[in-house]
């Protein structure tokens, strides 16, 4: 920072107190520049690290949340057939589907194409992504048509007397 590529232009004709030290090859000068550069890097590091951690805080918190392996949805067993319940699994959206045939399934609701939130359409018997028209099978989560490259991530579902528990498959 303190050294500039244009310095040779600048100090030609001025009587500067420092011109006598301007000899680039003096070992003490080189040593000094080395120490100054190292100190500068230390300063930059000492400022950049807290700023990085500060900005990354929510990402870290989300990472802790996704460490969640199980979510219990109270009263979700009352969900009528042929309907879906949206909930958060950790930090990302997920859906619990009570099929018309009485089956229970749960998927991540994040489209595998570009990350929009998908929705269950019981009358069409499909999971649809409105962003780019991706379609998934509501029983298996398999990508049926449109751009999605992969099936929706499926969860394990356990229906109890007063709740439904969704856990990582």
């Amino acid at each position, binding site marked *: *920072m303190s050294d500039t590529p244009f310095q040779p232009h*600048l*100090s030609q004709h001025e009587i*500067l107190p420092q011109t006598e030290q301007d000899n680039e090859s003096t070992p003490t000068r080189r040593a000094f520049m080395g120490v100054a550069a190292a100190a500068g890097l230390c*300063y930059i590091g000492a400022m950049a690290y807290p700023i990085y951690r*500060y*900005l990354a*805080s929510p990402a870290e918190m989300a990472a802790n949340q996704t460490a969640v392996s199980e979510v219990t949805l109270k009263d979700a067993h009352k969900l009528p057939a042929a309907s879906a319940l949206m909930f958060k699994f950790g930090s990302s959206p997920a859906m619990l589907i009570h099929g018309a045939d009485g089956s229970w399934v749960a998927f991540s609701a994040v489209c595998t194409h570009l990350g929009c939130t998908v929705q269950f359409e019981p009358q069409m018997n499909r999971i649809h992504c409105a962003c780019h028209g991706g379609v998934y099978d509501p029983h298996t989560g398999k990508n049926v048509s449109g751009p999605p490259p992969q099936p929706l991530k499926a969860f394990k579902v356990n229906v109890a007397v007063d709740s439904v528990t969704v856990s990582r498959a």
Partner: protein
Amino acid sequence: MVAYLYNWLDERLGLTEIIAFAQHKTVPTHKQSFWYYWGGISLFLFLIQVFTGILLLVYYRPGAEAFESVRQITYVMHFGWLIRSAHSWSANLFIFAILVHMFSVYFMKAYRKPREIGWFTGIALLFLGALFGFSGYLLPMDELSYFATKVGLQIPASLPFLGPFTATILRGGPDVSEFTVQRFFALHVVVLPLLFLPLLGLHLYLVQKHGNALPPSELAKPASARKSIPFFPNFFQKDLAMWLISLNVLALLASVYPWDLGKQADALSPAPAGIHPEWYFMAPFHMLKILGNWLPGATGEVVGILLFTVGLALWVVIPLYDGENKASARGRIAHYFGLFAVTALLVTTALGYWGIR
């Protein structure tokens, strides 16, 4: 390659002219040169304010959630306490640095012709700086900031006619509330910067245009006896060294004495004991208090504000009174007026702090 890039940029930006300008710019050196650094220190601290302010903006939420978001910044986000502490400390150091800058300019008579506008813009920047301080102080919405703002807005409210109206508009209602935080936030991060930055640009342009002022003691010497150093790189290096010292002082204060966050503001809880304004508002606060003892009721406040406004107005127009670069009775009167102002500020500040002990 470097030469090619330089030529490409030079043709488009006129780098050579800028370098030639920097090369010819000199800064006087004499016994009082030390005071030349304080404008640069102020600028550096302002840049820190902008930088840490933007970082706080990442998590701060004005309005009803203000306290909760500052609590989050202070206790939940990694190093949030440090960034908030650096912002608060550099705000205080900034006000301190511009006060030192202002008084050194005053006593070195650097406001004289042709630098009058530099003085006026500087005062305007100080005034905006105080408003930055006042509006920023409320944003955490803890007990101290709540009562400080309540009391602070009571002062314009005591003025006849327009006073109560102004205070209500500033508050966004009859009392300090989440509406006050929201509009102080808009003031603090949008309105004030929009006013501050162009003024700062003009101020810095004028410094470049007229160069550093010589104090009367130097002007009295023949030109051949005056010494100067090139701005670039010599003075610039020293400026950077000052910035580094400021950074170290700030880092030390911000990390060793982290800025406190009080209890959440509650309109129903009584004011905490020993509550007092920030140090840079202590002098006017205490002067009002003294006058209030002599002239009880609203009269004291009005007379106080009047006296303070007159004093401030005289301070602002000093270049119009003492504008000629020669020793004169006016110059001496201005000097004594300055000494009186400094003494009054220091004494009332000290008395103010003495009173709350």
